[in-house]
């Protein structure tokens, strides 16, 4: 149906919503190319199913919902790999705590030398956070995003990703401790 009217609509959608959708995707998947692909797929799905758009939600909300579902599908793949390799506590040991489950000496939490009140420092913080999140395992970052960016509770996350509550708490624990340590190292006073 490549007629002029549709071409106009397509360019309106892409010009109006692509940046917002890309920002949303990049906060949730590590890889920029993947984020771009997911946004493109979102536009294509929406385009093909345009009769299903009922006009109740805004176009932006509708597109974001489609994108959200695509991101969760992507997370599910990471979760499936997790169940192959993850036993929760064993093999891959926690370097942050010693044998007595006390903080390991090299990992003692230090004070942050900066606070987050100025907007310049905030910008810097989010650049550091993005870099630190790249070091997380895909499944840890998935749980992190669903919890903090999408505000889901643990029951919903476990159901969406088909993981057990004990896996969930280990994932959150590791992600948290690792991120805090990474942020401490990178977020130094300038």
């Amino acid at each position, binding site marked *: *149906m*490549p007629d002029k009217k*549709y*071409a106009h609509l*397509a*360019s309106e*959608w*892409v*010009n109006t919503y*692509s*940046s917002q959708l*890309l*920002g*949303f995707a*990049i*906060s949730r998947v590590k890889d*920029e190319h993947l*984020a*771009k692909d997911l*946004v*493109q797929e979102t*536009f*294509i799905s929406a*385009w*093909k*199913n*345009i009769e299903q758009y009922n006009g109740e939600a805004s176009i932006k909300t509708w597109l974001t919902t489609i994108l959200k579902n695509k991101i969760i599908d992507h997370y599910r793949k990471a979760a499936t790999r997790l169940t192959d390799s993850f036993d929760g506590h064993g093999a891959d040991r*926690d370097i942050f*705590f010693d044998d*007595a*489950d*006390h*903080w390991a000496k090299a990992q*003692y*939490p*230090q*004070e*942050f030398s900066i606070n*987050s009140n100025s907007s310049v420092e*905030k*910008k810097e*913080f*989010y650049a550091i*956070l993005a870099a630190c999140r790249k070091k997380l395992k895909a499944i840890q970052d998935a749980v*992190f995003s669903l919890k*903090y*960016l999408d*505000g889901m*509770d*643990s029951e919903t996350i476990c159901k969406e990703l088909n993981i057990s509550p004990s896996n969930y*708490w280990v994932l*959150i*624990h590791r992600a*948290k*401790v690792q*991120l*805090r340590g990474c*942020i401490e190292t990178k977020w130094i006073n300038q």
Partner: protein
Amino acid sequence: MKLHISCKEAVDHINKKEEGKLSIWQKIQLWNHLAICVLCKRFSIQNKMLTKLFKQTDDFATHQFTNEEKKKIIDTLVTTED
């Protein structure tokens, strides 16, 4: 049930507390631990600040498609059969 918990358990309790998932007894354990452990106390304070910042991540996302990328998506759409 023991009153004293390890640092690792304290961090777990802190995470569960965020979701309101601590029993009264666990709250006492955590309170007791944070009163005597300066490292976990620090973790707990920083954790509060960090979780607040984590939640604002979307407000600071600043990526853009290039014009060519946008054009490619538009072209894909107009040539997609529905």
